[in-house]
């Protein structure tokens, strides 16, 4: 049976169909979950997609984390279920306390929309399983608040525990230690600013996102 991937839709999300397309393109089933849903409808993994959930009012993710679906996501994540937050989804996961740190305004205050080269730093996460560390992937970024920030103790922990999942080759936004993506201690929750779902077909200029989506599908089938 193919994996069933839940894609959370908040008012203001705008990348959910890209995620659905990427997931379905690789033979899995995608289920869009409305932010007011109180359960995950039997999904094997959850993606929180990019966009501007609740208009990014107050701070990106600050209001989204209180949407009813997030209580279910929290339970699922703490039970070991694979959860990936992309871009705005990463911001939501940090606000929800499922990932450490915060995403600040980009250094230089530029809204970035460009391909970025990232290096996979660990294959021990639900999004990079089976991808050899050191592999360079070309994945687009599209954000204003992608400047990953955390205190020194958290940064030391992330490094020591091999929890930096992706690093930029050329830091576009001022993120500490060139961090593009991190995972939680159990390695089943991953947040990243680049958009692998937008790099899943040669027509899009890169299919380097495919190994990541494939890794997520594998994690969903076999957590």
């Amino acid at each position, binding site marked *: 049976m193919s994996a069933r991937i839940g894609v959370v839709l908040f008012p203001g999300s705008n990348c959910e169909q890209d995620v659905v397309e990427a997931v379905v393109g690789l033979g899995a089933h995608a289920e869009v979950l409305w932010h007011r849903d109180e359960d995950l409808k039997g999904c094997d993994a959850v993606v929180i997609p990019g966009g501007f959930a609740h208009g990014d009012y107050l701070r990106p993710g600050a209001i989204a984390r209180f949407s009813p679906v997030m209580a279910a996501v929290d339970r699922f994540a703490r039970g070991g279920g694979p959860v990936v937050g992309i871009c705005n989804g990463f911001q939501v996961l940090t606000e929800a306390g499922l990932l450490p740190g915060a995403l600040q305004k980009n250094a230089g*205050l530029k809204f970035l929309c460009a391909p970025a080269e990232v290096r996979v730093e660990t294959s021990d996460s639900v999004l990079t399983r089976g991808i050899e560390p050191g592999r360079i992937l070309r994945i687009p970024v599209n954000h204003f608040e992608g*400047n990953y*920030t955390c*205190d020194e103790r958290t940064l030391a922990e992330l490094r020591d525990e091999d929890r930096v999942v992706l690093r930029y080759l050329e830091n576009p936004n*001022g993120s500490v230690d060139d961090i593009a993506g991190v995972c939680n201690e159990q390695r089943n929750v991953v947040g990243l600013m680049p958009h692998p779902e937008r790099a899943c077909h040669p027509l899009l200029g890169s299919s380097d996102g495919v190994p990541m989506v494939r890794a997520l599908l594998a994690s969903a089938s076999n957590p």
Partner: protein
Amino acid sequence: MRFSVHVEVRLREGIADPEGATVERALPTLGFPGVSGVRVGKSIRFELEAPDEDAARAEVEDMCRRFLANPVIEDAVVSLEPTAAAPPA
């Protein structure tokens, strides 16, 4: 009692402030030299009904911790005072 509340949300010391830095760079070009240490924050105002000032402060601080500020990067400074007039009927 009714309180008029002002919450100033600002970036914690040591956290880079790209917005403040940009404003700081712009000021000299407008003929305002000598400005340093610009920090840009948020100002949130509201009214609150609470039994007394301590209760009001405790409630606002809880709001800041859980919602109004992100403690990873922001501090919140709360000021409040009883509103003089009775609430509108």
